């Protein structure tokens, strides 16, 4: 990561190698002491296909891949525009944060965000979401999810630098089109992502996210 001031923090996700182990999800919950039902990082499993009978044998035609998504700190954040109290704001480094002291818990941002990032904390009565481990960044440390990933499929840094290194793909099925909110996130698609999109494959672990 370069020394110069970061203007837009972003995540990179290599979905071609994500095993869906959820270590990132657990690390985030542990570090932020999140309540049951609140997930700042969510790991989705997208699966489709079927067993195909060929004469006397059956061939596996099933495919699956995983998508680890937190908040994408969008450059046109729908949550920020929707929030009536101004509790959601964007910092100079591009990180979108929620001020719990202002949030009224109306959950309008939950409707507005296409990534499921704002999560209602029933106990606190306010919305919460990934804050890019601001405290860790301030100490020169790595966000908990990125540090925890055993397969090293998560990276973070300046959006432009990540794009120069990995390309600028920001969409994979079933994510919405990046034109909706311009997420500060890029990814490497899994080899079966196009097939999943064509076949409108299901998210098969909805109860986990």
């Amino acid at each position: 990561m370069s020394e110069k001031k970061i203007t837009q923090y972003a995540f990179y996700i290599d979905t071609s190698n994500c095993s869906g182990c959820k270590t990132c999800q657990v690390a985030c919950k542990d570090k932020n002491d999140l309540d049951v039902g609140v997930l700042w990082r969510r790991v989705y499993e997208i699966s489709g296909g079927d067993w195909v009978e060929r004469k006397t044998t059956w061939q596996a035609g099933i495919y699956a891949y995983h998508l680890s998504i937190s908040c994408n700190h969008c450059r046109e954040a729908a949550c920020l525009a929707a929030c009536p109290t101004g509790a959601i704001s964007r910092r100079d480094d591009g990180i979108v944060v929620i001020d719990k002291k202002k949030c009224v818990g109306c959950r309008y941002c939950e409707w507005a965000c296409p990534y499921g990032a704002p999560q209602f904390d029933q106990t606190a009565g306010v919305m919460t979401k990934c804050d890019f481990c601001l405290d860790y960044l301030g100490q020169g440390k790595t966000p908990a999810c990125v540090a925890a990933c055993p397969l090293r499929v998560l990276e973070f840094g300046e959006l432009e630098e990540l794009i120069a290194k990995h390309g600028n793909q920001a969409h994979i099925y079933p994510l919405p089109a990046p034109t909706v909110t311009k997420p500060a996130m890029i990814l490497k698609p899994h080899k079966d992502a196009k097939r999943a999109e064509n076949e409108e494959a299901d998210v098969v672990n909805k109860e986990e996210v």
Partner: protein
Amino acid sequence: MHGNHWSLILFTLLAQASAGTMVLGTFFRSVSRISGRPALPQSAFRRGLFIAAAAMIAAALISFFHLGTPLHAIYVLNNLASSWLSREILAVILFTGSVCLVALLHILGTKREGLLHFLESSSAILGLILVFSMSRIYMLPTVPIWNHLFTPLTFFGTMFLIGAATWMLIMGYYREFAASPVNVIGNLCVGFGAFQLTILVLHTLYISGLTTGLNESWMIGLRFFLLLVGTLMAAKVDRDSDHRLLILMFVVFTAAELLGRFQFYAGYSRIGI
């Protein structure tokens, strides 16, 4: 649909009923001012006004139940620049205040007709702005089933239908009033009932083409039945109709709109993940 949607169902219905009552009452008063013939007895208008004020106060109080941290409500006007929710809350405050002010002036027996006319008209306009801003909240790009012209059409339809039904109920107490606009109000109920029926059919065709959202056909059928019954009742009522019939018509229309609003919130489904 999460549990706090019941407070939103009641809030939106009561607010729209209040706005409809105020808009139509002010319309009748304005027509009588222009024509020189009384359209509503003063006491009838006051009843409508007090109903509108009470409904709006109830709506505002009920809306607090959908908030996770109501004490932070002091900040809800902080994002008028981009948030339709902020703008709607401003409209709620202004409309509620305006209707209550008009009600207070009537209680105090103010004779200043010019001032009353101005405030009544302002309240009616604020009511229209309130329903418009309410509908814009739901027109989010991420919720396709709400992000359509059907949302404001349905909301305004509810406003006018319940408002007209409320006036029909009130005028049932004024049979002796020679210039009673009961027939006119009855025709309005027929018109708005037919409008809501048409919107229901067209909207059902639209959402049947979407792959997202709740689409319980029995609820749609029941709402269609209630709207049809209410509209047919409205076509039959006149100034001599039994008051119980007017009450039943009001209940049928309100039940239809309550069901429709429940379906609206239950149909929530967001794009993406």
